[in-house]
């Protein structure tokens, strides 16, 4: 019976969460929840690139920036254009996808560390452009961005429902929950699809994947573009929610943070990635009271609370990576991958016969009947 009521329980829990949080912790925590959901969307997007296709991307925040700035420039007094969301959401998504393909194209031949460095460079290029172009208003950023509105319903305004007055952060919460769910479902479908399986094959062995007839170039580009699309969507929402964007929101730290969410939660596993994103978005705030604790304990603040928070955060991350390298909530496949050291975990086959007895250790390629060596 438990499983039957679980979905209902989940829906009620998610719906009640902002109200409970507001009462228990205060309104700023509801805002934090909104941000956590934005991060969840970002992490799910990056998961497509890193988790599914196995391409390490350290410049993912660039796509978030592209989405955010596309909304900021086309829905603010900055240029004087105010386009509606139903135009800007697809625009931001498509623009980010185009940038994703643009980044993907020159990096197709690269793997691992080399790819990471190039993507990192790409992220920085975008940020520096935003900082130095006059059309993006340079380091000052763009202010007075229109709030997100659908029809006449503005998400930033307070609305009264059943006699309760709900401030903007509640509206955004429900909007973000809806979109996160949508992205989650899309990812789920993608994972089990033909494309998802092809990505898994590329992650495992690119040459073999090519020999199976997979167009690895196009599939990698698709992964970059799909991941970037979700990043762009999150960016659009961020700009409308925050009402202000500046290049400082899109530093490399953000890229690293999003990557941490994916890795910490469990690469390639949707529930894990979601957990990682929510946890890492909220954790730094949760460490905030430590400054007061110091004050009351020692009558003095020895360690700057901001630094202390980051220190504890780093310790927590390292601990998780040592104790659970596969992530907090990994997919069964990923778990096998990281605990698999050249077949030392070979399970006994059902029949009880040991496998692997016919391999020559070290694959030296010398067998009894082979008498090569003649030039």
């Amino acid at each position, binding site marked *: 019976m438990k499983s039957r009521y679980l979905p209902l329980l989940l829906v009620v829990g998610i719906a009640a969460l902002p109200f409970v949080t507001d009462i228990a912790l205060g309104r700023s925590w509801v805002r934090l929840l909104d941000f956590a959901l934005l991060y969840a969307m970002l992490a799910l997007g990056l998961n497509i690139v890193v988790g599914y296709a196995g391409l390490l991307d350290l410049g993912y925040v660039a796509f978030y920036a592209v989405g955010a700035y596309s909304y900021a420039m086309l829905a603010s007094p900055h240029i004087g254009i105010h386009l509606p969301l139903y135009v800007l959401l697809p625009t931001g998504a498509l623009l980010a996808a185009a940038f994703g393909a643009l980044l993907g194209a020159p990096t197709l031949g690269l793997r691992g560390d080399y790819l990471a460095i190039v993507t990192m460079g790409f992220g920085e290029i975008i940020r520096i452009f935003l900082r130095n172009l006059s059309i993006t208003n340079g380091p000052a950023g763009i202010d007075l961005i229109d709030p997100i509105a659908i029809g006449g319903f503005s998400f930033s305004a307070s609305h009264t429902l059943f006699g309760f007055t709900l401030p903007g952060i509640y509206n955004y919460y429900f909007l973000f929950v809806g979109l996160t769910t949508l992205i989650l479902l899309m990812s789920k479908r993608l994972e089990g699809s*033909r494309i998802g*399986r*092809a990505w*898994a*094959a590329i992650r*495992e*062995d690119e*040459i*073999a*994947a*090519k*020999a*199976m*007839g*997979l*167009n*690895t170039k196009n599939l990698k580009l698709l992964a970059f573009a799909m991941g970037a699309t979700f990043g762009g969507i999150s960016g659009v929402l961020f700009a409308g929610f925050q009402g202000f964007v500046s290049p400082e929101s899109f530093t490399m730290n953000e890229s690293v943070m999003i990557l941490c969410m994916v890795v910490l939660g469990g690469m390639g596993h949707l529930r894990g990635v979601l957990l990682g994103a929510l946890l890492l978005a909220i954790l730094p705030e949760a460490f905030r009271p430590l400054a007061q604790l110091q004050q009351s304990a020692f009558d003095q603040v020895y360690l700057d609370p901001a630094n202390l928070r980051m220190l504890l955060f780093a310790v927590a991350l390292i601990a998780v990576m040592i104790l659970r390298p596969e992530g907090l909530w990994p997919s069964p*496949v990923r778990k*096998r*991958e990281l605990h*698999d050291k050249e*077949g030392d*975990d*070979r*399970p006994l*086959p*059902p*029949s009880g016969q040991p*496998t*692997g*007895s*016919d*391999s*020559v250790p*070290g*694959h*030296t*390629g010398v*067998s*009894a*009947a*082979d*008498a*090569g*060596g*003649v*030039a």
Partner: protein
Amino acid sequence: MSALLEVKGLQVHYGGIQAVKGIDLDVHEGELVTLIGANGAGKTSTLNALSGLLKPAAGSITFAGQPLAGMPVHQLITAGLALVPEGRGVFPRLTVAENLAMGAYVRADQAEVRKDLDRMFGLFERLHERRDQKAGTLSGGEQQMLAIGRALMGRPRMLLLDEPSMGLAPLMVQKIIAVIRQVAAEGMTVLLVEQNARLALQAAQRAYVMEGGRISFSDTAHACLNDPRVRAAYLGE
């Protein structure tokens, strides 16, 4: 009858040296042909040129009347040529069944694919027993069987096998050769590139012997087995 695979004047450069110095080679429909030679004779470079991993410096490769040079690797399977890469190249963290399904990636006839999957499990009993096990946990010989089965799932017209005996114990090598013979007996055209000359010659109908980037000798496999030069150079007599 014109050859299914026809190689003419093929030259391949690899890492600054001329690894293949102009060879002619052909394989007819339904034949099991082997290309043997010592380490560094140019066998792998030849195969890499056939499979599109290396670009030939000169010469032509024609498959089913279609030039292969310049064709991207991923289009080979659609053209009907399946490569079983050296070192097997299975997807270690996908299950046996998933690996086999990957082999049929370019095919749209799902009902036929399912039939072929059953056929593979019939051909390779060991794979059937381990169908839900991840491929990385299989033994080397089982992985080689999986790689061959996976290539067959694409319903190719011809199979390119690169050193299938590599790294396997003698008993398993015999089993793999038996499998290759069986596949060939069912009508598959096979080009077997092997270092293990004796076994390759016992299985094949015709053979090319490669030496220093050139074909030094070619005849029926039976004649090669009895040729004093081949016996001296490759069979250790």
